[in-house]
């Protein structure tokens, strides 16, 4: 009788162990080595993403930026970039970084690069790569041969496609061409909606917008973070009772005393509206 029970206790032990093992595997953080960017922790993924955006401003190569972003295996690379840019702005992070993220989103959504590559600031750039010093005392070799995927990513050649328009260059000044009140009962909040266009009436992403409160305080944000509205669109949530001044681009026209407009509904009730501002690059 006891011999017959023998197999059952072994099976029970195996089952208990199996459940324990699965639980441990699910709870223990994973640490990979010699691994792929998609397995990075979230902080390093953010850093990798922002570096891709900064490098994009140098190369202006949509294909290469896309290939690099694909390595992170985000559900939507554009959404991840937008979210990161917004978080960065909310946290008062680097303006240059958030601008780079916004420009990359715009570039990817529109399919063609629309910025001018940043110039090199190196004092003495070497003209010829004839002699590249590499350490020879203890050569380091990658432990795993690179995959075809990695090769295709790294071997991408630079193919900048700079165009003349639109160019969100530093110092571009924009002029207000239209200001109107937006009165929609079901609108999500009271916004300052900014649309920025170039001289050819094409929306421009990555344009710096500076907003200040009359009694102090200033915030900066960029167009291009809501490409589903327009690549040249940005908005700012106003607070009741506050008055704002706004400037688009560097040295652009200052628009003063912006505040929540009062709108009248069909039934005569009053509700808070939004402001729509349209800017165009000055001649």
């Amino acid at each position, binding site marked *: 009788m006891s011999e017959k029970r023998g197999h059952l206790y072994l099976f029970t032990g195996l089952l208990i162990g199996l459940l324990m093992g699965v639980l*441990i595997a699910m709870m223990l953080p994973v640490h990979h080595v010699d691994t792929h960017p998609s397995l990075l922790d979230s902080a*390093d993924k953010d850093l990798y993403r922002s570096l891709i955006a900064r490098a994009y401003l140098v190369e202006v190569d949509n294909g290469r930026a896309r290939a690099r972003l694909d390595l992170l295996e985000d559900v939507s690379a554009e959404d991840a970039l937008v979210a990161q840019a917004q978080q960065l702005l909310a946290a008062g992070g680097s303006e240059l970084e958030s601008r780079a993220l916004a420009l990359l989103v715009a570039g990817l959504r529109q399919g063609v690069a629309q910025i001018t590559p940043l110039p090199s600031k190196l004092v003495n750039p070497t003209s010829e790569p004839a002699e590249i010093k590499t350490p020879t005392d203890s050569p380091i070799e990658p432990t795993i041969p690179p995959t075809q995927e990695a090769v295709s990513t790294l071997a991408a050649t*630079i193919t900048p496609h700079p165009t003349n328009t639109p160019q969100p260059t530093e110092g571009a000044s924009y002029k207000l061409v239209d200001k109107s009140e937006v009165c929609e009962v079901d609108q999500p909040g009271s916004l300052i909606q900014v649309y920025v266009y170039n001289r050819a009436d094409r929306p421009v992403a990555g344009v710096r917008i500076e907003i200040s409160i009359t009694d102090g305080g200033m915030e900066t944000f960029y167009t291009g973070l809501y490409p589903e509205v327009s690549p040249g669109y940005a908005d700012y949530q106003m607070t009741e009772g506050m008055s704002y001044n706004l400037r688009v681009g560097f040295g652009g026209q200052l628009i003063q005393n912006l505040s929540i407009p009062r709108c009248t509904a069909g039934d005569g009730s009053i509700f808070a509206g939004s402001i729509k501002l349209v800017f165009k690059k000055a001649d």
Partner: protein
Amino acid sequence: MRKSRLIGFLIAILLGAAGGMFLGWQYLPSQVSTTRLQDLRADYQADFVLMVAEVYTTDGNIDHAVKLLEKLNPENPLRAVQQGLLTGQQMGFEPWEMRFMADLETAIRGHLGQGDAP
């Protein structure tokens, strides 16, 4: 007899746990990752170095570049660039890419005061 059953039971648990952990890591891995940039494969690290070098060419901020490279090699950021150069050579990086990284390596040498010796 009871002792042998107990031992058998424990061995079964251990075997089950090993199998369970294998299955868990294969099919239900933890969503929490502690994988850092320094754990990236050499070719991805080389591409990271290249991006840092590209950014450095535009902003000339060597402190920022070193800070980023410390993510790959906290003790020796210069070593990270040198490894990037080696990997880049092996993988056939473009000459301009190698030049960017070589310029960064030279700048870091100067910044860290390491002269010509690696």
